[in-house]
């Protein structure tokens, strides 16, 4: 990659989330679920968003796609797609973005396709909907798209139904649908979790290769820190609706700064560790993520934090820059 290309990639943010607030509407008002979230992704950049279940990763993704459903709703902040705020777009305009400029891939390839439509029709309809193609042209485009995700004998496969395909093949079809209209942003919500380990690597490589070719920005949502560290340039860690740390992928793995990130990295099993350190149980983070409306006044991680101080329970730390680059939300670095 040349130096100039790197420059343009840094300055051109495909997605910029600014101070995003999402709340759960309840009878006694709004319970904040996600607070002051800032995150940006440049053109062609792969950014990881990690955290355990219930910390707001998928909620963030849904908000970006404009798919939050009542009682969840955006209460503040901006979501900029190519500089345009899409956080409060009317439904109709949001629909023309989805699948066209923002695409998503999900966890369950087994059930994410309509069982009663041929895969050719399902891919082709994207071209009809977003590109206004005729049925015949869409069919040709569907074959090409299927070819690109390396499904063998695509021309024959487009007549098959989802149940005739394996899980890996179905995920390839989902990728073909997602990338059909050359989106600027691809949100991949644990795209390989439901697949065999051997297929996982193939699918990931496929997603990354295709996105690299097209300079598609990727938001990779996962709870697999190892995977994210391997394929992403930057990694953001979320905990209970706060973005608590963001660093370059290599650094976050080697020198995690936030106690929560340290816990996550420490909890990863590593091959050969027992030979060096002897037989020891994996470290774990005690406790569970607090529920929405149950966050308390201080740092949301304080109740589970091994290095919690008195002030951690009184106020939420602000986000500060790390000297080595990146951001952190912790009093240890304030």
């Amino acid at each position, binding site marked *: 990659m040349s130096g100039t290309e790197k420059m343009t990639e840094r300055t051109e943010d495909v997605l910029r989330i600014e101070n995003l607030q999402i709340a759960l509407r309840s009878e006694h008002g709004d319970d904040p679920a996600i607070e002051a979230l800032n995150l940006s992704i440049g053109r062609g950049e792969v950014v990881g968003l990690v955290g355990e279940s219930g910390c707001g990763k998928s909620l963030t993704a849904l908000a970006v796609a404009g*798919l939050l459903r009542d009682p969840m709703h955006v209460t503040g902040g901006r979501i900029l797609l190519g500089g345009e705020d899409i956080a409060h777009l009317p439904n109709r305009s949001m*629909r023309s973005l*989805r*699948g066209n400029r923002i*695409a998503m891939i999900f966890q369950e390839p087994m*059930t994410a396709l*309509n*069982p*009663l439509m041929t895969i050719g029709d399902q891919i082709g309809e994207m071209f009809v909907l977003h590109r206004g193609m005729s049925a015949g042209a869409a069919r040709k485009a569907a074959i090409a798209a299927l070819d690109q995700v390396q499904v063998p004998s695509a021309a024959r496969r487009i007549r098959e139904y989802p149940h005739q395909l394996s899980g890996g093949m179905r995920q390839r079809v989902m990728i073909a649908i997602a990338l059909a209209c050359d989106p600027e942003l691809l949100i991949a919500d644990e795209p390989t979790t439901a697949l065999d380990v051997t297929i996982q690597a193939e699918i990931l490589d496929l997603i990354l290769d295709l996105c690299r070719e097209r300079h598609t920005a990727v938001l990779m949502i996962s709870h697999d820190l190892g995977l994210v560290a391997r394929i992403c340039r930057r990694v953001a860690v979320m905990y209970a609706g706060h973005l608590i740390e963001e660093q370059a992928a290599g650094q976050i793995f080697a020198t995690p700064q936030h106690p929560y990130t340290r816990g996550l990295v420490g909890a990863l099993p590593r091959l050969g560790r027992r030979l060096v350190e002897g037989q020891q149980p994996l470290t774990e983070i005690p406790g569970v993520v607090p529920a929405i409306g149950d966050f308390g006044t201080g740092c949301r991680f304080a109740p589970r934090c091994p290095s919690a101080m008195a002030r951690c329970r009184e106020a939420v730390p602000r986000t500060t820059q790390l000297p080595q680059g990146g951001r952190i939300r912790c009093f240890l670095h304030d």
Partner: protein
Amino acid sequence: MLRQLRRPNLAVGGGIVVLLIIIAVFAPLIAPHDPIHDANLMYAGEPPSTAFWLGTDDQGRDIFSRIVYGARIALTVGLLVEMMNAAIGIALGLSAGYFGGWWDEFVQGLTNVMLAVPTIVFALALMAVMGPGIPSLLVALGLTDWAYSCRISRAQVLSMKSSPFIQAARTMGYGPGHIMLRELLPNIAGPLIVVATMGVGSAIMAEASLSFLGLGVVPPAPSWGSMLAGAREQLIVAPWIAVFPGLAIFVTVLGFNLLGDGLRDLLDPQGRSRR
């Protein structure tokens, strides 16, 4: 597909319905006499014989011929009425299940009202306003018996709405119209076909009832219900005038119900995976 005929319900029900359709279509070739104009008081009230297979009525008309032509009325009314009911019920149920909110509340309220008052009472009221005849029969029955299709399509949509492929369709930018008609409807069609098939049976039953009461098909048109009505006075002396139209109604309704039952076994997703 052919071995599905081994299911007795499907085979018997399907057989009856196919036979009925053939009889209705080829009525002029099958019926030995004209159902209306071959009245001849010389032969009034004849019992079944080789000349009049099922006997004659009080005006000397051939009952067999009238039943054969009656199949046309029964099937036309039954199918058209059920199409109207299915269209209304599915449109309301699908949209109520998909959108939820006040629209769902409203549709559910309307459905409950329709279910609380027997269909025939509603239809009677409408017929009383519009007067007898086939067009008003179609309107009266077609607008009043959609509650089951509505209930079932709503329930099916609710259980399918959150499935990943519907969510996926949303992320691809499809609007509610596309999602309801192209994604949801085909996937819930199985149970709806079953309800509609049985609905044809009950529509035929309702037509016969209204005609029996003199509010449906006007005599001398050969409706099975009005034939029954005309036979009341001679029930003791000439039972065949009442028995055979009654049998026709019974077999027809049974046929549609068996067919619906058989289709349920066939279209049930669990049954399908067992195959």
